[in-house]
């Protein structure tokens, strides 16, 4: 399960895009992990994430943080998305001090993540996973601009056509940029969509779409 790994974009677009995931381990610390996972989620929420969720319950745009916390069980995997490096550093510092005990991974630009870990006093990355990109019949993929948005949901629940539909809705005055970002965030139940980054990409895409009829 690598759904925060293959986000596409250049360094400028990815430098403020972090998914911090909390996961207990089967056979090691999964039994009795619900309070630890809940504590991690609670701490993470105080640091102002742009999105936060649990795959099975949904994210803060589908439901409330209280509902997400209430429905945590042993084995729940939770994901918290930030649009600010400083917030993640502050989170890591608090996690280092309070140590909820479940495993924590940070997805982001590698050298920035390593710098953040040093700032938080965590030392070197423990284990790393690299994306080697997309192979095979890549002509089947949509435009790179669309991929920049849709790859924020690793389960591919944000449809390529939805991006076009949302842009047309903005240009026709049917929805605002904020409303569009929330609509797409609802599709990605895990809470991986970075709404700040999504809105920036949509802004860049808007001039590329021509609406022929109203």
């Amino acid at each position, binding site marked *: *399960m*690598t759904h925060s790994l293959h986000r596409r974009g250049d360094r400028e677009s990815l430098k403020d895009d972090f998914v911090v995931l909390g996961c207990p381990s089967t056979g090691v610390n999964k039994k009795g992990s619900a309070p630890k996972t809940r504590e991690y989620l609670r701490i993470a929420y105080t640091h102002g994430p742009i999105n936060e969720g649990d795959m099975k319950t949904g994210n803060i745009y589908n439901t409330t943080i209280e509902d997400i916390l209430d429905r945590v069980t042993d084995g729940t995997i939770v994901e918290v998305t930030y649009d600010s490096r400083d917030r993640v550093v502050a989170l890591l510092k608090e996690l280092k001090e309070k140590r909820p005990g479940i495993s924590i991974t940070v997805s982001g630009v590698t050298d920035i993540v390593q710098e953040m*870990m040093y700032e938080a006093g965590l030392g070197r990355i423990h284990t790393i996973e*690299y994306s080697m990109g997309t192979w095979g019949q890549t002509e089947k993929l949509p435009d790179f601009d669309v991929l920049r948005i849709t790859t924020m949901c690793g389960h591919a629940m944000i449809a390529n*056509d939805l991006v076009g539909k949302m842009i047309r809705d903005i240009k026709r005055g049917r929805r605002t940029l904020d409303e569009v970002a929330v609509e797409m965030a609802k599709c990605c139940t895990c809470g991986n969509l970075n709404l700040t980054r999504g809105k920036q990409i949509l802004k860049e895409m808007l001039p590329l779409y021509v609406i022929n009829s109203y």
Partner: protein
Amino acid sequence: MRVRDDRCIGCKRCFPYCPLGRIQTLRRHEKIPGRIYIEIDQDKCTDCGMCYRAKICPVNALYQPAEPWPREVRAILSNPLTEYKGSQVPGRGTEEMKTNDVSGRFRPGEVGVGIELGRPGVAAYFRDVEKVAMALSPLGYQFAEENPVTQFMADKKTGKLRDDVLNERATSAIIEGKCNLKNLPEVLETIKKVAEKVDTVFTVEIISKVPPEGEIPILPILKRLGYWYSINSKNNVGLGEPAFKFYQ
């Protein structure tokens, strides 16, 4: 996913929410005069449930019946809300490196290699998943036991999948496992060759324990062989407890 043809009004509001694109067609209802309804191509639909969860249908015409085996595998691997009991984690894969700080799953000298067919947003048939799995098996690649694709194998040594799942389709299906570091060049070369034989896309990811000092061992190999890797990565920060002892 199915459509109740006596309710659907053919408004097409569900179309843009389908992660697989235009897999629907409009039909004329045989019994209700003037009624147009949507029919979903059942071969292409992966039962991910996105159109249903979007709550976009104004007449509540979409529904997901409980599907028997082997179609059941579509939702297992495509609907993020479906948990596969064999992997004991929600989602399409395993805990992989996310818990390596406590599980010790990937140790020094080992490389985790994942191949997720159908990603991003193209989908894949299991006959293509099998091609990749069978290509990897002779190379000392150990399939992750708790991974759903591994559980669908008829022979875990050869990577052969059960015949009854081969024509099923998933939004994506990930092959997860590991090999020795020395086998990584051959594994990647094999994946490159099999990429020409599958009718879909796939993402490739590799995992390494980062040594306390010195270079990440997989990077010199990727650079020497000219493989691209992304500037962004997933990083276990080592806060899990109790910590696995990698070095004595």
